[in-house]
């Protein structure tokens, strides 16, 4: 029997398991698939503080950013603190960006139009300026999740962190009201607490415990180019990305997010659509992503796209993640619904979860993330 069972071996589950093990808890991680087989492997690996309005998510992001830096020193995975450059197409947008940066209280530098190309030589002409966020970073999320699990297992005593892959959770073991384990395709696994870190599928896992979590998929496509010599130094995106991140629109939204990776490819995002789990590739979406990237970096016009992929980001109606104990099912905790920011927010989520599990005073007020903040599903 473990102290904690973490359901989901993605980035968030890995962080929850790592910090729980570090706090001295015995942890078992179960996943129906392999490590990092869901949304973790279908995004860009964003670790951003720049794209968030002031508020609880930004607090979480700032804590997470600090934790990422220390994890990167311990773990053997790609982590690039390359900085994010948000660019504005018009003077008006630039004023709004500068205003937001002032409110965020995040380390930043306002970049005049004339200085943009010192930072990014290939940027298009005619941009009105931008804001540079040095703390923004890029991580290879699949490897980070896998390495973090390994690090937790290696560093915190034999057997403190066990990984059980290919095991599907089919229900919960209850003792009265209390959740005392999970029923799985390979028998019951008992634990003192269960952490639901199943990302986009978090709502389904919660439903197995009879509780409602309104987590829905939001589809995003990414284009990948041929490998190139280093060309883009920062994570570069347009101001529209910030507004889209917080948008409630159900329709297609796209904004340019462009960056080089250590593998040499350029990743191009980002699109957001609410179309359920539709896996059909959309040529119009890919065309828009390509057009926006070329508008930002004209030199990309003759560069070839060689791949595309898509993922389903788990979002909640208020765009905040769900982190903490569920009073409707004692013993059940949630750590999911991070939308497009799950990689960036994972360490703080895991850290906070470990504090909640051990009864330590949390570094952040978890109230805004409580699982029972949503109205019950209308019957």
């Amino acid at each position, binding site marked *: 029997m473990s102290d904690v069972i973490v359901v989901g071996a993605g980035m968030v589950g890995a962080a929850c398991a790592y910090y729980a093990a570090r706090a001295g808890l015995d942890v078992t991680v179960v996943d129906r698939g*392999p490590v990092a087989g869901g949304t973790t492997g279908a995004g860009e690996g964003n670790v951003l503080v720049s794209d968030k309005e002031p508020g609880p998510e930004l607090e979480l992001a700032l804590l997470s950013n600090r934790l990422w830096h220390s994890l990167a020193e311990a773990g053997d995975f790609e982590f690039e603190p390359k900085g994010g450059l948000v660019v504005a197409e018009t003077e008006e947008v630039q004023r709004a960006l500068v205003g937001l940066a002032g409110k965020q209280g995040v380390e930043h530098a306002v970049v005049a139009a004339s200085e943009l190309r010192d930072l990014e030589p290939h940027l298009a002409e005619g941009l009105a300026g931008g804001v540079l966020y040095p703390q923004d970073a890029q991580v290879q999320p699949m490897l980070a999740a896998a390495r973090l699990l390994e690090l937790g297992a290696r560093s915190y005593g034999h057997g403190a962190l066990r990984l059980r*892959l290919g095991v599907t959770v089919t229900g919960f073991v209850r003792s009265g009201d209390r959740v005392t384990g999970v029923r799985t395709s390979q028998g019951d696994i008992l634990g003192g607490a269960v952490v639901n870190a199943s990302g986009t599928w978090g709502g389904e896992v919660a439903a197995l415990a009879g509780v409602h979590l309104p987590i829905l998929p939001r589809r995003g496509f990414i284009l990948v180019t041929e490998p190139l010599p280093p060309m883009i130094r920062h994570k570069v995106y347009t101001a529209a990305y910030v507004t889209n991140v917080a948008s409630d629109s159900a329709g297609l939204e796209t904004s340019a997010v462009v960056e080089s990776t250590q593998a040499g490819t350029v990743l191009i995002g980002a699109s957001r659509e609410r179309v359920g789990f539709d896996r059909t590739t959309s*040529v119009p979406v890919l065309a828009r992503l390509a057009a926006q990237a070329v508008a930002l970096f004209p030199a990309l016009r003759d560069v070839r796209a060689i791949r595309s992929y898509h993922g389903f980001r788990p979002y909640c109606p208020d765009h905040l993640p769900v982190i903490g104990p569920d009073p409707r099912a004692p013993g059940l905790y949630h750590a999911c619904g991070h939308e497009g920011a799950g990689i960036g927010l994972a360490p703080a989520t895991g850290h906070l979860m470990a504090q909640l599990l051990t009864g330590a005073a949390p570094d952040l007020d978890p109230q805004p993330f409580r699982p029972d903040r949503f109205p019950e599903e209308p019957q």
Partner: protein
Amino acid sequence: MSGFRHDLVVVGGGPAGVAGALTAALAGLRVALVDSSARLGGQYFRHSRAAQDAPGGAPELDGFLRRGRALAERADLLLGHRVWHVSREDGGLAVHCVTPDEQPLTVRGARLLIATGAHDRVVPFPGWDLPGVLTAGGAQALLKGSGVLAGRRAVVAGTGPFLLPVAAGLAGAGADVLAVYEAARGLGLARHPVLALGKAGEAAGYALALARHRVPYLTRRAVVAAHGDGALEAVTVARIDAGWNVVDTRVVECDTLAVGHGFVPQIELGVELGCGTRADADGSPVLVVDAAQRTTVPGVWAAGEPTGVGGWRLAEVEGRVAGHAVAAEHRASTRASTRASTGAPAVSGGGHGAPRALLARRRGMRAFAEALQRAYPVAPGWQGWLRDDTLVCRCEEVPVSRVREAQRLGATDARSIKLLARPGMGWCQGRICGYAVSCLAGEEPRPPKRPIAQPITLGALARSTDEPTTPNTPDE
């Protein structure tokens, strides 16, 4: 179904595609055929420009070229066009291409025939990325398409009957072919139970050619390593057992190795459309088709290797069957819309419009193809040839050790190995290493997902939704 510029769009200009397109065009359908090569032919009928300009060579090729000319008079041929994506659109199919000058072009039709052929399958071994090591098909393409000999001192190795024409071709063009090393068991060509069937004549012809050039054909042998400093200088040839485990080895000096371990059917366009797949006799995922070569997706047909590797003759028969079936459905839907009846698209049931004799031939050839696949299996012992530093993925330069490391970290399937260690993330998108990675993961190869099937410039991609038209026919 009348709103489309074409009644049928065919992807692939090999034996299956040309047969399907020509059959449909002769039945009066408006047909477009798209192929990435400058000339029709696919892999089998790949030919030099000289052969095209001055026919009079091999009778089979002459026949194909004749059909190609007949097709050119009756259909839109879009050669040098690479298909990067296919999608369903307004009740029909949209074939998204890149033109030879890198422009986007979408070809729309009521129906689609997937005839995209196959490419060589090669399992990795130490040194397999040295210059001078080519796929068997690559060595043959060089010779057939450009009249260039892959090398002077050549070894042909791998498994399957395809090694014979490759060796015969190289020897006939003047290469010193040191040997053909066939991994399968030694029954002797003439006595091989499968080859003793209908195709014996062809195999015997190649065997004769090899004998004439004094090329030994040695079975239960494999090239298990290639050596050289910057280019191939020698190979290690092993005697192997039925599981492909090494019994003993010797070194053979050569400058060229042509190697192939079967074929990989190219099915990604069908997968992208949601067509059902199945594992072929050799484990390769192939598209499921019915007696009329229809896939599980309405409006989409497939013929040739994507429905199961079986060689050009079977491919051509399947192409003809598909062409007949497409024409029959076209007639039925035209009749239905003329009558302006219920409005539901007419789908022909059992009737597929193909002559009975054709169907019987296909049946026999399919059984033969399956028997061949079973007679030349890839056995798992090749994994014992690998060293830690042997590249699995040539594009991303992923060695065996990194694949093993990913597995240790919790990558339990081929997809998660790819996510953690990057094999298959590069230029070829796992076409070359996909089979090997699946084997190392301990699973059968899964249907490939390649939404962008061919590289396309971002500039062309950005404009790929701008242009609504397909090109005019030459006679317009």
